[in-house]
């Protein structure tokens, strides 16, 4: 029981990370119909954003304030990177075949991975301790860590902010409109390019949040850190139904939990393969994912 609870808690924290990242994939897919392969690298850049913010501002004492500053640094940096990637790599290809955009996305992703190795160095770096981890209390004999609570809190807060933006603001309404009928929205006076940019910025900001949350729990960062987690999050997005925001969150949590149980009860060497096996099963039995809907093409 205690073991199970421990796995569940871990699963929820990794799941909330997946959820944050899956949202980025699903938002971009919803609005542009493309898989943004570079999203995992934006996440990586977020981690380095926080790293350098901490270094230049000399944040060496753990405190909530420093954590907040690091978080802001990551979010701003990731959002900026997302914005630039969209502007310089994807925007020129707005009217090109999908294949070209996908290839570009792959290119951007690799460029960041290896460019990162040149700029930041290929070796893992120790992420500064922005906040001291401690056992707050015990629940059925399993210790509850501060970092875990922080992960839950920050990711739920981010999800709250996101859903406010998407469902309650003018911009969010425009984003939803562009994702359904991009051909009609300009007639309503919506600037599609601006909305697409906005989507990238918001998705990237979430990736920045995820990066800091992961880094306070596993304080080692390197330029390839996004690869595995990015793939898993994408699978989470497909699992939940790509294009669906709720699906991404639910898919993220389910995948995180499943993965943790798998590691917890043996089979840890196959952890990386787990998400892909899930993906193939989903495609076989419910190809639209949990919350996805088939879009009827007008004939």
């Amino acid at each position, binding site marked *: 029981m205690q073991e199970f609870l421990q796995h569940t808690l871990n699963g929820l924290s990794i799941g909330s990370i997946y959820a944050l990242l899956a949202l980025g994939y699903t938002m971009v897919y919803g609005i542009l119909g*493309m*898989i943004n392969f570079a999203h995992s690298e934006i996440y990586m850049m977020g981690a380095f954003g926080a790293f350098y913010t901490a270094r230049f501002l000399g944040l060496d004492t753990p405190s909530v304030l420093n954590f907040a500053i690091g978080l802001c640094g990551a979010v701003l940096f990731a959002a900026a990177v997302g914005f630039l990637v969209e502007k310089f*790599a994807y925007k*020129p*290809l707005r009217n*090109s*075949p*999908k*294949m*070209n*955009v*996908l*290839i*570009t996305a*792959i*290119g*951007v*992703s*690799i*460029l960041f*991975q*290896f*460019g990162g*190795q*040149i700029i930041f160095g290929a070796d893992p770096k120790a992420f500064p301790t922005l906040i001291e981890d401690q056992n707050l209390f015990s629940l059925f004999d399993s210790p509850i860590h501060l970092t875990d609570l922080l992960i839950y809190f920050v990711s739920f807060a981010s999800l709250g902010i996101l859903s406010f933006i998407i469902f309650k603001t003018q911009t969010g309404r425009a984003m939803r409109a562009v994702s359904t009928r991009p051909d009609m929205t300009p007639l309503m006076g919506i600037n599609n390019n601006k909305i697409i940019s906005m989507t990238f910025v918001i998705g990237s900001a979430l990736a920045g949040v995820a990066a800091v949350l992961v880094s306070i729990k596993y304080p080692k960062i390197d330029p390839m850190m996004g*690869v595995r987690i990015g*793939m898993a999050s*994408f*699978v989470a997005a*497909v699992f939940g139904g*790509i294009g669906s925001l709720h699906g991404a969150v639910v898919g993220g949590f389910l995948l995180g939990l499943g993965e943790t149980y798998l590691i917890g009860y043996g089979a840890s*060497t*196959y952890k*990386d*393969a787990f*998400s*892909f*096996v899930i*993906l*193939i099963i989903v*495609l*076989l039995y419910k*190809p*639209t994912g949990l919350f996805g809907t*088939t879009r009827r*093409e007008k*004939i």
Partner: protein
Amino acid sequence: MKKYFIFLVLVVLLGVVLNSFLNSYIQAIFISFMINAVMALSLNFITGLADQFSLGHAGLMAIGAYTSAVLNKEFFNDQWIMIPVGVLCGGFLAAVAGYLLSLPSFRLKGDYIAIVTLGLAEIVRILLLNWKHVGGPRGYNAITKFPDFFLSYGFAVLLLFITFMTMYRLKISWFGRNLWAINEDDIAAEVMGLEIAKTKRYAFTISSFFAGLGGGFYSHHLGYISPGSFGFIISVQILIIAVLGGLGSLSGSILAAAILTFLPELLRSVQTGSLDLRMIIYPILLILMMILRPQGLFGRKEIYEFLSEKWKTKLGIQL
């Protein structure tokens, strides 16, 4: 018939020159060029002609490589004469894997095949890492090799020739036209009575088969393989060759394979330290090409289509 004879003479001549005047380093580069060309053709068939993005060709290559290597070492008593059999088996196993993978992937629209193939490559890599019998992460050693360069060269040329001819014949046949029609408008193609998912499945299986062949020969060429030899980077490298040559242009893929195999070797002298500059240059090349010249060198056309009419008749090419 005449043109095949001329082709054979040229190939033999090149072989003789390579064998007697150039060192083994350059010989090896020639062979890797041909393997790269086979891999790029294989990817081009599915990505260029069928418009389905595969990111897992390294995984299919790994299946072919390990199958062939293991068969030869464990079951065929290390005889080089059995290498072609092993390679063929590698191709078949890769084709089976590709077929199974294509079953769920083409049931709906979208780029799922990209992710599914990526997943395949990853799963294959993880399985190989955990398979102690073939060395796990340390790799598989002392794989049967051809005893001399001429045999190796001959086999590589044959492999490339068969790959190219198969794909070329299919491209200009009913099958190629079906693929193209699906790219243009899948709904209209379906209304003409074409089973779309089935057609894409065939294309992917054929592509997987040749990726397996390429991988199989790769293992015998190097004599050593490890799960690391088939990482994501390899898939990307194959993709870059296919894109540079032009998605849909088979001869373009061969030319691009030549360029991207020989050029880095020439640039090797200017490389600095341990850093692999290719991994910076490649993605930049990809992005710039997609923005400035997305059709690659030749677009969908074959190289000879750019020749004048006079040369076409001289070479005996009819459309």
